[in-house]
């Protein structure tokens, strides 16, 4: 027992007492869910960052210096992301961080980055809370507050007046539900149920829903698996109304999990940036097909891109990068031309109406939000 304890002590202390030495490279951190339910977002965004950095390094780096990525698993939770941020900011001494991906990760990492004066650019976090997360926090993915406005606008244009919604009780889905209800007329949501995270059995709710008059079904889930179960059981009950959803439905995995149920389903999200372009070709050649959506990889690629631009422009520390990003007129990336507002929120990324057509998600038209 004592020997085991001694061995464990030595291992723990040795591992913790170590830190990677920097050398002549510029270090950029990454925080995202590399394990757990949200790992598919993490893998796509990490690969997006890696792709951008490899391209920069192959072209000679920045002012002759190569860039090194230090990736940490945030597990889509605040405490893990905070630990990861502590290591990146205080041990690895990264100059900037791409991440977190889940909003909880970004919110927990933000104060640590703020204290260490390290810029965070999140490629996927969409919670409205991120807007006020701090001066050093940016994102090139729009807030849900804006996306629900786009959705409400679409409902008004299509004369959809009665919406049935089932929401998973998670941070993303709850924020989306609250924000959508704010943007719709008071009596628009005629069926509004909330289920525990990870629920897969919706048969009772679907039976009740069958007796409600509604124009469209809004499955508001946090993961592919839950979204697939909602759609499958919705169609199993014989309901023919159209279904529409958000980011989570914008996933090729959904077409594999419930192909018949999601056929014809509508999605309102940022455009599937990179789809069908050389970016997707190059990405697929290097890392295989995106696990969630190529758009996540594209947003991460551009998040690394804006940081690199700031460095090329001569920014040498977090404060200089922050100032450069606030003053950036326009960055032309894979997701389009964008800049940041005074809160660090992205400006210029539009929305698109998409549809599952024969197992593939295709953009039908763009939706602008004033």
């Amino acid at each position, binding site marked *: 027992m004592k020997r085991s304890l001694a061995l*464990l002590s030595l291992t723990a202390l040795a*591992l*913790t007492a170590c*830190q990677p030495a920097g050398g002549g490279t510029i270090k950029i951190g990454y925080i995202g869910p590399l394990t757990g339910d949200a790992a598919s977002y993490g893998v796509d965004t990490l690969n997006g960052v890696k792709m951008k950095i490899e391209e920069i390094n192959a072209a000679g780096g920045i002012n002759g210096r190569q860039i090194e990525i230090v990736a940490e698993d945030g597990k*889509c939770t605040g405490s893990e992301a905070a630990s990861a941020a502590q290591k990146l900011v*205080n041990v690895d001494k990264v100059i900037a961080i791409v991440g977190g991906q889940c909003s909880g990760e970004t919110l*927990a990492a933000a104060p640590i980055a703020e204290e260490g004066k390290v810029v965070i650019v999140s490629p996927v976090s969409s919670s409205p809370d991120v807007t006020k997360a701090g001066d050093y926090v940016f994102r090139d993915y729009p807030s849900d507050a804006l996306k629900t406005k786009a959705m409400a606008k679409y409902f008004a244009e299509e004369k959809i007046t009665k919406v049935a919604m089932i929401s998973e009780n*998670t941070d993303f*889905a709850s924020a989306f539900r609250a924000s959508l209800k704010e943007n719709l007329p008071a009596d628009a949501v005629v069926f509004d149920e909330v289920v525990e995270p990870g629920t897969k059995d919706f048969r009772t709710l679907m039976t009740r829903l069958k007796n409600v008059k509604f124009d469209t079904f809004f499955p508001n889930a946090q993961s592919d698996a839950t979204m697939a179960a909602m759609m499958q059981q919705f169609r199993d009950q014989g309901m023919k109304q159209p279904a529409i959803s958000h980011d989570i439905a914008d996933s090729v995995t959904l077409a594999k999990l419930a192909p018949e149920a999601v056929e014809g389903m509508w999605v309102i999200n940022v455009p599937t940036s990179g789809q069908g372009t050389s970016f997707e070709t190059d990405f697929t050649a290097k890392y295989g097909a995106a696990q969630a959506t190529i758009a996540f990889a594209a947003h991460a690629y551009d998040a690394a891109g804006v940081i690199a631009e700031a460095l090329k422009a001569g920014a040498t520390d977090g404060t200089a990068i922050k100032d450069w990003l606030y003053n950036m007129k326009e960055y032309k990336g894979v997701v389009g031309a964008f800049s940041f507002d005074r809160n660090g929120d992205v400006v210029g990324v539009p929305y698109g109406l998409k549809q599952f057509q024969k197992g593939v998600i295709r953009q039908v038209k763009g939706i602008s939000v004033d």
Partner: protein
Amino acid sequence: MPRFYNLPEMPFFFHLITVIAIALPAQLGYTFVFGRGKILHFGPIGVSTVAAYGTFLTLNATGSFLLGLCAGVLMALAFSLLFAWLSFRLDSDGLGIMSIAVYLALFAVVLNWTSLTRGALGLPRIPRVPFADSAMSFALLTTGACVLWTLFFLWLDRTKLARQVSALAEGEWHAKALGISRAGAHIAAFVILGLTLASDNFFYAQYYHLLHPSDYYFPAFVSLLMITVAGKPGSTPGAIIATILLSLLKEGLRFLPFPSAVLGPLRLMLFGIILLAAVWIQRDTLFPKKRTI
């Protein structure tokens, strides 16, 4: 590519110290209840949940840390007394099941009373106490609290209460014959655990500036349980060593030079295997052995 290593910067040490200092008191409290008392109390995360929300909802409403702390302590005490009451009305396995049910009920309230708790969104931008806003001062504050708790538990181990709790675990009827009150000992044990949970949760959300329900899912309890077992159930020094080493190990595994593609999964698998090994070594100490003459 091989890497060279040197000593980490101070702020990361402060982080490690803070993480351990925040976790340790509750670990010691649970070691006392579950490890020493063999009380199958599976609801401490429920107490943590109400203590944390009590603290920070009050803080947000009043702006007073003192009132927030008082509210958290009161909530923790109220639900600790509920668990204590259940413990002397139910058999050990019955308490185990009931405590999980109570935890789930408390968690469901927190998650679904969105107008009060913001539900799954959690409470962002939690401020720190004004005199401990920096990493170093917060580490000092939590370490101070942790040292006081540790000294208290080392003292508690030598008290009559600890002997009573041990005696009740070994043979309730024998203990009763010696005049030991199960109700009194259990109330004291649950209250002590509740106070450590209130203390931990007063610091936890402040440190991360975020109170999020995902930190109170059931796996958080599994970690508490595993560390208690790894440190040898009922042993205060064992719980201290296990908490320190496993916390260091968990953070230390981040430094293994794996490629980023396998870093996350491999780290979790390694930690799981090491934890399993530690628990396996202590498997015989889980429940008291029958004394023979």
